[in-house]
């Protein structure tokens, strides 16, 4: 038995894994890192459009969470808490960035990701559909990047990550009703924008 203690049962519920990590169980925490690193990266990348910065957010969020874990009162709140940490780190970074310059988008990164995304989905599509789909996706991400950061976070958390209005509200320090309004405005703006692309 090493540092990790015995490996845990494969069908453990997330609440129990979080509880063990709270007690300092490294194997349990590693499992949480494996589960959340991908989700947090997707969120951070879509917020920041920069791979390196998105990776930094993932790393900072998860190492911070290790320190804060013992204080977490409700084990079932782990997911919401970790999304909140990551979202706010992204918003802080964007605030810092905008005090320097306008949104910097790493175009090379964007291209690679759009292309690979196409390949990932194109297996089932014919070339015409593929081209149409790719244009649609480019359009959507460009419009997304034009939204104010808090609105973009709201849209991503709801539409890409399925988080609840209540949780998004806590993250963005607004009421669930205001989350609803923000989402409606974001959808309206993106839908309007998409209608210009033809």
């Amino acid at each position, binding site marked *: *038995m090493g*540092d990790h*203690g*015995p490996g*845990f*049962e494969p069908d*453990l*519920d997330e*609440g*129990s894994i979080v*509880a*063990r990590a*709270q*007690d*300092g*169980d*490294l194997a349990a925490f*590693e499992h949480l*890192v494996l589960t959340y*690193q*991908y989700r947090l*990266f*997707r969120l951070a*990348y*879509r917020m920041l459009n920069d791979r390196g910065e*998105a*990776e930094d957010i*993932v*790393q900072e969020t998860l*190492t911070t969470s*290790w*320190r804060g874990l013992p204080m977490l009162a409700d*084990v079932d709140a782990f997911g919401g808490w970790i999304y909140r940490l990551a979202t706010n780190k992204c918003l802080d970074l964007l605030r810092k960035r905008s005090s320097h310059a306008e949104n910097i988008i790493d175009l090379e990164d964007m291209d*690679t*990701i759009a292309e*690979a*995304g*196409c390949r*990932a*989905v194109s297996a089932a599509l014919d070339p015409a559909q593929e081209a149409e*789909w790719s244009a*649609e*996706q480019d359009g*959507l991400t460009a419009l997304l990047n034009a939204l104010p950061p808090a609105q973009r976070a709201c849209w991503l958390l709801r*539409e*890409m990550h399925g988080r609840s209005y209540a949780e998004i509200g806590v993250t963005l320090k*607004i009421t669930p*009703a*205001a989350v*609803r*309004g*923000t*989402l*409606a*405005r974001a*959808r*309206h703006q993106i*839908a309007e924008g*998409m*209608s210009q692309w033809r």
Partner: protein
Amino acid sequence: MALEDIPRLGCGRSIDRIWGTIDRPPTAHEEQCDQCQTARTRLRRLSKATRSLRESDLHNPTMEPRPGIKNAIMDVVRAKVRRGSRILLRSADNGTTEISEQALSSLIRSAAAAIPGVHSRRCRIEIRSAAASVADEDHPTGTTGTSTNAGPRLIINLRVAAAPGIVIPRTVEALRHEISNAIPASVGIGAGTVNITVEDLYDV
């Protein structure tokens, strides 16, 4: 930000309401209203694009962090690992044996894994030290020889999640039994008191 901020069409319908019903057939009003029809078409297109972006991001290998990131995180974490207090197992002239609360918790959890229908969660271990359990006498710890019976008395507080539908008293008794056997077998001291709290039911 107030609810009134939700964008509305010229006909008074809110974007939110249309979004919520785009998968349903149009209402009588929507069939008549050009603005509603345009909005429905646009939002439906957005809904489709949203779904395909979500799917492609999920399966797109470039939307993953570099592979080394987990290890980088675990390296930082390992350096700050919490082991809790240390428990004196045995004290003799030739040296002492201690175990960390963390290691003892691992033992308890691994014993608990043998009982189906419970997932162990947090574990707190209180120790009544060897000196205190031998009572008032004023002999210093470490001079009481090699007897394992004079070791510390443990109070184990284990919280668990249970599978819905199990018989809790019977399962918890089996769990207590398992822990009470595992501790002396591994570390040579009695398990003392084993308090078990079922704090949650997990989904199966």
